């Protein structure tokens, strides 16, 4: 046997040893078994509650005919428009307000803390009861809002939930009202993390008020603001409660978004695959958002 043959014969054994070393790390004997035993529950949970639902969902919505049926449905078409409007207005108006309000709540004083406590109440109360209350308040005949209008000004208020645009507007306003406090708190925390020496130095250089905000605060908050906006967009894409409990998707199915349409198709029409397809049709938007979000979270530059 020449030297080359000896090496060839020994190579698989070397490979096996290298693989075992790679898998075992520095663990030996029983230690390795324990490591595996501890790992198994986590892997099982991950497979059961993350991988399986995703694969099952993709499988359920995998038939091309479902999408043909979906795209031909006029309710789906209006739902896509509603979803885009809901995202564009709901996320951006809310985040912009949160940005402004976080600056307001940076003021000092005990009364500011009390005001902040009151301000976060809409976020703290359970959302379903809140949205049902809003639905009732907006009722055209006996709702609180129109009764107040009539008692105070003898005005017959509009039927807020009877028209597509006013109903969708009500949904968007309800969402903004409910979630602005949460994002305000996040941005407030971001502002508080800006080192004092930076803002003090900026003040010495004359960057106060709007100039300070434009040149110092906002650039430092920009990454956080963007991440919050992306997260909020992803959350809102799957939102069900606001639309379902405020407008119910009505009138005449005109205010559905993809989340509520999916539930309608799956359960009201007993076509679960069509329901999954409605939600899956948002994936072309969700996947790029998640990729951008991941990239932003990995940003190594000095950002808040």
């Amino acid at each position, binding site marked *: 046997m020449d030297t080359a043959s000896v090496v060839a014969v020994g190579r698989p054994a070397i490979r096996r040893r290298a693989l075992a070393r790679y898998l075992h790390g520095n663990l030996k004997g029983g230690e390795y078994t*324990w490591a595996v035993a501890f790992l198994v529950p986590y892997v099982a949970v991950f497979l059961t509650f993350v991988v399986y639902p995703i694969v099952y969902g993709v499988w359920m919505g995998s038939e091309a005919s479902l999408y043909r049926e979906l795209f031909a449905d006029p309710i789906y078409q209006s739902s896509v428009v509603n979803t885009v409007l809901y995202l564009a207005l709901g996320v951006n108006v809310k985040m912009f307000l949160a940005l402004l309000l976080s600056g307001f709540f940076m003021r000092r004083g005990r009364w500011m803390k009390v005001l902040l406590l009151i301000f976060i109440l809409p976020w703290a109360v359970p959302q379903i009861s809140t949205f049902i209350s809003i639905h009732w308040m907006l009722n055209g005949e006996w709702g609180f809002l129109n009764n107040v209008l009539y008692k105070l000004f003898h005005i017959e208020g509009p039927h807020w939930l009877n028209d597509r645009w006013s109903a969708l507007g009500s949904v968007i306003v309800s969402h903004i009202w409910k979630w602005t406090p949460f994002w305000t708190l996040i941005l407030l925390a971001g502002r508080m993390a800006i080192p004092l020496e930076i803002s003090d130095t900026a003040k010495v250089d004359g960057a106060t008020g709007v100039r300070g905000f434009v040149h110092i605060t906002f650039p430092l908050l920009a990454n956080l603001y963007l991440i919050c906006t992306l997260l909020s967009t992803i959350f809102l894409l799957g939102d069900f409660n606001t639309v379902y409990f405020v407008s119910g998707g*009505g009138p005449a199915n005109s205010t559905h978004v993809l989340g509520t349409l999916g539930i309608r198709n799956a359960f009201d029409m007993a076509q679960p695959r069509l329901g999954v397809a409605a939600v899956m049709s948002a994936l072309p938007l969700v996947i790029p958002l998640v990729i951008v979000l991941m990239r932003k979270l990995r940003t190594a530059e000095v950002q808040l």
Partner: protein
Amino acid sequence: MAHLTRRSMLRGSLALAAAKTVAFPHVAKAAATTASVWFPQGFVQDEDIALRKAVADYEKQSGNKIELSITPFAPERQKIVAALTSGVVPDVMASNPTEILQIYAWQDRWVEVADVVETQRAQLSETALVSAEAYNNVTKKRATYGVPIRASIVPCHIWKSLVEKAGMKIEDIPKTWDAYFDFFKKVQDNLRKQGERKVYGLGFQVTANGVDPYQLFMPFLVAYGGKDIVTKDGKLHLDDPKVKQAAIKAVAYLGGAYRDGYVPPSAINWNDADDNNAFHAKLMVMDVDGTLSTEVAIKEKHPEWYFNEIVTHGIPGYPNDNAGKPVPAFVYITTGLIPKGAKNVTVGKEFLKYFIQPKVLGEFIELGLGRWLPVMPALAKSPFWQNPKDPHLKGYATQGLVGPTLPDHYVYNLAMAEVRNQHVWSTAMIDVAKDGAKPDAAVDKAFKRIEEIFAKYKMA
């Protein structure tokens, strides 16, 4: 740690598994005699109490165990769809909504229960028997997949007190279709003259939510001559001029009443419970709504309303059509279903056989205050239904069990269930009510959609 080896771990696991089977033998035993049953929650608590009693009586008599799950109406429907999608099913479930029988029979998802129905066939109404059948697209045959449990029709609920406040009498209500409903427009006009700002004559569910709008539309379609839109052979007849005229008239009347201000504006976005709540709040003089839920919901809290202020129909049953002929009532049958994949079909069938005995079924319905009707005409003769002191029950039972009835069209063709769930008729009504569309144009649009839906369900 050094003592633990892969072999010792495997040995330990096997020992634990073996010990479990010895320590808990009843688990295996229970599977043989236990059946899971799903039922929707009642509108009043008495319905659930009645169900629990029937189940407890069965358990006592048979020695079997029933795991009963009572879930609110809408979530139960979701639970059923989710179960049938995932394959993790109970042994028995009530059809909620009723057309779930036809929807999943098409996919061959039910166990045949003709043997269960056979035990009471002579007792059951013809409509109940037909409604328990469905077309199976795998076997290409119709078969009995449901066991009729209870029935409902869609009565008219009227505030007698509001009619009288308007200076009119219940006895003055006309007995032909259009005149009957026009009467309540006059009631509204009179009430408005008295300064009542927010009372409407008609509680029509001109909405695209829930089951109510379809169940409102269909009696109107039949009253105007459109009964044969789908015939018993499952064929669609949109080309029949009588059907088209009936659809146009129904859309025009229902949409027009809303457009003209005789229906609460919020009706356009009502859910199934909203009309009940609006009626109880006296927002409208009358409501057309399935079952006696409107009445029984307030019986305990407001007995004076139940006995003195609210009447069902105001006349014996539906008004006649405009030509003076009786209008049959649609009867919706709740059935007991056994899904394929159920673990204990034997106990499931045994439970259903017990449950549909006239004595058991009669007591179940009556303990539930009579919101639902029995599926056996003989049961309507009981003192409960014939009680002369009750202003609602006798008329309700007579209309649903003695008078002319018919099953819904989806019993003959599943496509009609999709027409119902896609709210095709609602869209037509709303087109007229809110968007000012001409009734014939709204009906043309609806017919086009119905044809598309029927094209998906081709029966052998």
